[in-house]
């Protein structure tokens, strides 16, 4: 493993304190409805979440932002920041993602001196940008010289590892079951990364109805341990 991969891997750790541990992106709605109740049903939801929402939003955004960084097209980064936010119609997921983005931005600035991160912070302060973890992550990956493909894969992994930890607490699953999901999910993550490389940019923001509905319903879920 090269040093730069190791550095980026630090951001993927589910202990990396960005606040992702308090968001389930609708998973908790399914848990309350007894539709997610074990390792198998969780894996089913996770597969749909990654393939029918994450790849078209965060995943595709990683690719586009990476290309923009390579070509020095900064305006496109801020455009993706807006698109990522406004395509996220469920309020809790939108606001939660923004909070995670801001948290991650602050933390990585204490680790790396990247001028673009300061610009991003400034733009958020001036309400010219929202803040999104996929963009912060991609800026760091690009800065470290990690390839676009690995940056995308690691980002997806970071999202999945947090969700698995959340599922372990909420369903609950045993720690072993959680690790089995992460292992079983490796091929899905590699396939998703391949898919992101070929998605037409016009397909940005596609979301499957049930996932989104559950994210909206979460606002009215009675007993909750997650903020989304």
């Amino acid at each position: 493993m090269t040093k730069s991969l190791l550095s980026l891997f630090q951001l993927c750790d589910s202990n990396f304190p960005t606040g992702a541990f308090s968001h389930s992106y609708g998973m908790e709605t399914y848990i309350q409805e007894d539709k997610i109740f074990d390792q198998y049903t969780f894996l089913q939801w996770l597969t749909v979440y990654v393939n029918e929402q994450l790849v078209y939003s965060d995943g595709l955004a990683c690719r586009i932002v990476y290309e923009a960084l390579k070509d020095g097209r900064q305006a496109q980064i801020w455009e993706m920041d807006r698109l990522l936010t406004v395509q996220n119609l469920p309020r809790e997921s939108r606001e939660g993602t923004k909070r995670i983005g801001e948290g991650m931005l602050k933390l990585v600035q204490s680790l790396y001196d990247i001028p673009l991160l300061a610009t991003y912070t400034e733009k958020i302060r001036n309400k010219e940008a929202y803040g999104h973890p996929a963009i912060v992550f991609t800026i760091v990956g690009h800065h470290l010289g990690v390839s676009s493909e690995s940056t995308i894969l690691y980002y997806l992994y970071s999202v999945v590892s947090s969700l698995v930890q959340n599922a372990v607490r909420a369903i609950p699953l045993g720690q072993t079951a959680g690790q089995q999901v992460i292992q079983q999910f490796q091929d899905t993550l590699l396939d998703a990364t391949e898919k992101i490389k070929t998605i037409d940019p016009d397909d940005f923001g596609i979301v499957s109805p049930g996932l989104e509905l559950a994210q909206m319903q979460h606002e009215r879920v009675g007993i909750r341990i997650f903020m989304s």
Partner: protein
Amino acid sequence: MVQMTGELQLKLEEKKGRTIAKDAYFQGALKVMRPIYLDDSGQVCYYILNPGGGYLDGDRYKMQFALEKQARATITTQSSTKVYKTPNDHAYQEAEIIIKDGSYLEYLPDPLIAYRDAKYKQKNVFRMDRTSALLYSDIITPGWCPEGKHFSYESVQLINEMYMDEELVVYDHLKLTPSKQELHGLGYMEGYTHLGSMFIIGEKVDNSLIDRLYEAIYENTDDYKVGLSKLPIPGVTIRIVANSTQLLEQLFSKCHLLITEEWFETKPSFLRKY
């Protein structure tokens, strides 16, 4: 330039308490019927119709509705949008909806019915400002095929872009491709067949109104599932999955009633179509 199958432009203005057409233009396979005033509010109602009866292979439709100062209108269709099989090229409809300066639009097209092997894409671009208001709904049915099988169409893609003072504030993108997705399953249609969406945008949409909308349509039932959420602008989006168009229309009517009673102290008129 692309040859349009049908084109329609409608510019509406308010004059002496009534909304009238300042400019109306249509050609090809899109037509607008003469304006109807369903009550004495001055709000005008237009029915759009497709004389061809349905959308065919490679069809291109373009519409523009522009509401000027204080104009109030309901725009609907005369019947459902049917998209027949498109063996070579998808059917496409684009609409630009401009609502500014205190104007109010109810854009309530009938359900979409995509036939076997149909491919359809629709894009609505809404341009609003802080003083205008919008009520929009759409319903996607599981389509139609001779054997009665659900979801036999190739793909249905709906995009809603909303701009507030030239800034993109909502990007709603839905694409159903039955052959590539387990549409009945978890995360997709959750075992239901029909999907309805409604957007209510306007300064008066606040948390308390959203709560009242929720109370008006929520039920602890397996007949349908509803979710609603506040947008980044004053506005709300409502999504419902159910098993019939009628049920979705009933639920949306309740929202429509609540909005018109609160905002205009009127009741929505029944849109007579048949």
